[in-house]
């Protein structure tokens, strides 16, 4: 937030500095709102990623489906949902990974796990 406050543990605040850092990643994610681009991504992920000016580290995060790393690199969570969807990872699967849990472990922590 650019303010001198104690960080909230295990929490990322998407501010302008982070947003600037994540510009390339977020542009790639936003492109996935077009069904033609989603298809191109699924057909040839490497070729698709090459269309954007992503760094090798940024491409590595996507190749490894490293969702916690993507957030730290400045990808916005709502933009990450688009790359999640294109790679077959629902919000809850990405969340489980960020928590360091399996999907089943994560579901067992929920009040009503059928509401997915």
């Amino acid at each position, binding site marked *: *937030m650019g303010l001198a406050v104690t960080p909230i543990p295990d929490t990322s605040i998407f501010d302008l500095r982070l947003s600037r850092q994540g510009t390339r990643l977020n542009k790639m994610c936003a492109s996935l709102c077009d069904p033609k681009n989603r298809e191109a991504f699924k057909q040839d992920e490497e070729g698709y990623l090459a269309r954007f000016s992503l760094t090798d580290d940024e491409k590595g995060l996507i190749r490894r489906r490293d969702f916690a790393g993507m957030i730290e690199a400045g990808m916005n969570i709502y933009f990450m*949902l688009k790359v999640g969807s294109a790679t077959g990872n629902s919000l809850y699967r990405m969340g489980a990974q960020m928590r360091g849990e399996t999907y089943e472990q994560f579901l067992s922590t929920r009040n009503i796990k059928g509401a*997915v």
Partner: protein
Amino acid sequence: MPSRIVAGIGLSHVPSVGPVVDRGRQADPAWRPLFDAYVPVREWLSALRPDVAVVIYNDHGAEFTFDKYPTFALGAADRYAIADEGFGTRPLPEVAGDAELSIHLCEKLIEAEFDLTVCQEMGVEHGFLVPMNLCFPHTSSGWPVKCVPLQVNVIQHPLPTARRCYRLGQALREAVSSYERDLRIVVLGTGGMSHQLQGRRFGFMNEKFDQWFLDRLEDDPETLASLSHYKIMEEAGAEAVELIMWLTMRGALSPHAKRVHRHYYAPMTTGMGLITFED
């Protein structure tokens, strides 16, 4: 007779509700508590005979991206397309707008020093559509009310303050009352409640905070307007900061508006709140 605000609703806009509606799974045991809560709300809304819904919501990277990001953006169109937010375009009819009302609101709100981004084209997605699905289900002939979308930046800090959002609601009330068309308007404040969708704290919820927020929305919205973003994020999760949009709805109502319905359901990762007021 000038226009007037007849009701306000605060409600969550959880995206997973969309596919449940589209696949007709509302009666699933895990979802039924949510959908049942809206049955009396829709009956009440029918009796109120609203003409227009002003929907205060946030986009999630479908229409607005960070190359240019408006703090407040008001739709001023006669129709709003259904946007593809990365999962396909939902099978929903286009949303009818009321451009004349929008233009009046733009003129009055900017005169009141709320320097809005005015959008003559604007696609809408789950932040807008899920509340519409719950409150104003569409039929083959479209949606039962016209809409004015009001998009708020709640995802890229710095965000407008809670008080700024509350004051925007007060200015919206003033603007509506000076519009010389006899329209009955419902204001929807959407988003939240407690949730965090990233980091190791993914899945964090806080029902105690959410119930406190609902209590204060009824009896002391001024206290909520004084909340910092930090306090909301610390108590209720980083993404719970969307709750500042409920304050715009509350600000658009009279201080003594009567609470009618209230419900809370937190099955997975978001406290899904519902509160209605009649004005």
